[in-house]
């Protein structure tokens, strides 16, 4: 019981540390690729602390509640994800619940932003939801391939099978699915070339435009957690999870740096281009992956 409670406190904190570290690292790597020096690694931490002390404006109760709901949702998803051996909510519904609890984050932001009464926000959310429809198609195919292959919806079990049988990305049926997941990762994270919903130069950061002070701080933390969640899901499903948090972190780091390097050099897609791309290559790969998985199973 005590270890359970410890884990419950530990895993969101770890996720937060890793996520915020990744935020700083991303800025640094981007800067180096573009021949700049870039801000120090702990810049996001400084920003978050500073933002908490700054004044902000509120547009109503839903404006406050939405952002709280969104962050709370992300924290709950973290509790469902194994981080090494740490997984406080292992047996409560598996991957299907993760898939659905992941909805809290965009939904909360969307509700909060909607109350902000700024067309930039509405445009941003509209794009975010369309993009979601775009990446959800390959993502679902990928997750279904994994669940069909391991004949379970429990992510903990998938990890423990991989600990014995080797990473699933090295096995034939799931290789294509893994590649597909990697291709859509930037879309899930909303980073370039898929930053259509924030698009700072175009719609003033979209859903973020009315946020200031602590709202922006919470939104940044939320973004850090989403970063953690999407990469941790990839590591758990395809890179065999890990026996301890250190190895897990190293795996995440490799995936993240690869992702940032690939995406630092692309310009932004238009929303239609983004959806068309997502429905073309990643979907095709994921589809073939699922068909192979199904064929091997039966």
């Amino acid at each position, binding site marked *: 019981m005590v270890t359970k409670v410890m884990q419950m406190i530990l895993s969101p904190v770890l996720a937060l540390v890793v996520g915020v570290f990744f935020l700083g690292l991303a800025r640094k790597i981007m800067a180096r690729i573009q021949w700049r020096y870039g801000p120090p690694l702990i810049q996001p931490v400084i920003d978050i602390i500073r933002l908490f002390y700054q004044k902000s404006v509120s547009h109503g109760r839903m404006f406050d509640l939405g952002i709280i709901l969104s962050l709370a949702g992300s924290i709950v998803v973290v509790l469902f994800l194994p981080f090494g051996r740490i997984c406080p909510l292992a047996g409560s*519904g598996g991957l299907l619940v993760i898939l659905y609890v992941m909805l809290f984050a965009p939904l909360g932001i969307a509700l909060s932003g*909607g*109350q902000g009464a700024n067309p930039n926000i509405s445009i941003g959310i509209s794009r975010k939801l369309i993009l979601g*429809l775009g990446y959800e198609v390959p993502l679902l195919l990928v997750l279904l391939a994994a*669940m069909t292959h391991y004949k379970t919806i429990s992510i903990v079990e998938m990890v423990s099978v991989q600990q014995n049988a080797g990473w699933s990305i090295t096995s034939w049926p799931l290789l294509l699915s893994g590649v597909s997941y990697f291709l859509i990762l930037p879309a899930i994270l909303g980073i370039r070339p898929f930053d259509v919903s924030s698009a700072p130069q175009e719609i003033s950061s979209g859903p973020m435009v009315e946020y200031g002070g602590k709202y922006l701080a919470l939104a940044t933390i939320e973004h850090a957690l989403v970063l953690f969640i999407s990469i941790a899901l990839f590591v758990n499903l395809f890179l065999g999870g890990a026996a301890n948090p250190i190895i897990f972190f190293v795996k995440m780091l490799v995936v993240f740096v690869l992702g940032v390097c690939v995406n630092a050099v692309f310009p932004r897609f238009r929303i239609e281009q983004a959806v068309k791309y997502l429905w073309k290559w990643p979907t095709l790969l994921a589809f073939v992956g699922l068909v192979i998985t199904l064929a091997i199973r039966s």
Partner: protein
Amino acid sequence: MSLQILLIVAFGGALLTYLLGKISAKVRNFLAVAICLVLVVFVAGLYGKRIEKTFYFGFFDLGLVLRLNTLSWFFAITIPVVGALSIIFSLSYIRGRERTDFYYLMMLLVNAAMLGIVLAGDLVCFYIFWEIMSWSAFLLISYNRGPALAAGMKYIIMSVIGSVCFLVGMLSLYASFDTLNISKVASAITSASSAYILFILAAFGIAFGIKNAVLPFHTWLPDAHSEAPAPFSAILSGMLIKMGTYGFLLLLYVIMGLKLFLSLGHGLFSLHRILCLLGVVTIIIPTFIAILQTDAKRLLAWSTVGQAGYIILGIAFGTNLALAGGIFHFFNHALFKALLFLAIGAVEFRTRTRDLDSLGGLAKKMPVVFIGTLAGICALIGVPLTSGFVSKWLIYKTLILEGSPFLAFFALVGTWGTILYSYKLIHNIFLGQLPEKYKDLPKSPFSMQLPVIVLSFAILLFGILPGIPLGVINSIGTSFGFEPLNVTIWGVASETGTLNTINIFSAVLLAGVVVWVVFRLGAKSASVPQEDSYAAGTHTPADKYHYTVEFYNPLHRMIRPFLKDVIDEFYSWIASSVQRLSNSVRCVYAGDVGYYVMYIISFLAFLILVQLKFKPW
């Protein structure tokens, strides 16, 4: 005996309400609500009983039978609950309109007829109540006149086609087995040839499919749901189309039975596979059509078609989890779709419009309705901690573990489509800037808020403690011959993945509290008026600063070419061709005696001519 009394109360109450309405409107309103509440209590008291009773023998030597089992009880309890809430909502919605007595009579009659359907123990009874329901629904759909008349006409024509199919199936069953008692038919049909079973399936399937709005029989639904008065839309979408679901359950699991159902056809062409595909198509296409709608009720109507697809998918897949998911989803859909229609009705009542392009910012004016809508769309999407999540989880899980990931894929993509239109609904009506003209909008009346509150509460209750309805559903499943599920109060336990809503609930609550505390600890935020927003340094216009028209414009451009309702166009083409044909017939058959005299004389002249020329006689 008690079932007869139940139906007498339901039907007699309806007539009494009409008569009392002539004397006093207050007494009528009171009685209408009271009857529904009495029915709720009455049905609740029948929980767990199994009754089968023949109450009348005179009908061509066929016994008319009333029957109660777990399946019919579960439907029977939902009917008066939704009915009572809609009638409470009607109190202020319909006040001051003309023909209110008639309105209440029809509302109660629909409710009574639906109760009759689920309690019917033989097909004659079923058919009689089915017709009462269809016709009183027709009268209610066209209550508003204008475009509602056309919508009602569309509904009743399709409904009559369904009834004819039902009648054909029923007569054929009577000719073959000499009985129409459902349990006797069920035991007789096992020896029938599979071709005959297919015929019966087609006949009844069309009848139930039209009511349940399964593709390709869905075309009446969007018009009917959007044109009907809001409280009746709630019943229509919540309960009436579910009579089709009940019919399917009766047909597939009670009459045919589990074994026969799963053994019909083989391979890709097995019956349950085809039905599953039909369910998936019914999920996907209407969901994307809903995204394109600009009328709030029409959007919800298309969403109803889509959600009916989940129910059909669950019922047709034929495992205990899927069946539980399907029946549970029926129950959830009755709750949340009634809630959404009532909420939109409350908005329409105050603003006199349901055009998604001209509303906005109403969350501040109608907080209760807003929260209700929020709960409703969360359940519609299937957000955890609302009851919609549990039913979808059950369906998805069994689809995945039984090796049908593609069915699961389409169902899940349908869910993301649901997010798009749900957000559009709530954003365009309740969020964003409040237009100037709604600045002094009065609050919703209490009789409109009450049903919204009750339904929102029910959605959360059954989302956090899904074991309450799942216990009943589980015993329905076992009565069909399935393995019982391991139902606990907070979900379903099994080796291949447990659902535990209490854990999710406490985690969300805990995380929410932690984040809230952090939020409170930060520097204070100042509340600002809606015009005080960032507009890149320029002045913010006071009105019409709400991005709503073509909310998903890029997506519209992508999907619109693929989403023409070909089926509806085809039916309309048939209808107009029939009309043209009838018109040309009418030129000949004009109803004027002069014409007929002329026809007779020319025919005689023709005969005389023939006789003179050829002398055949």
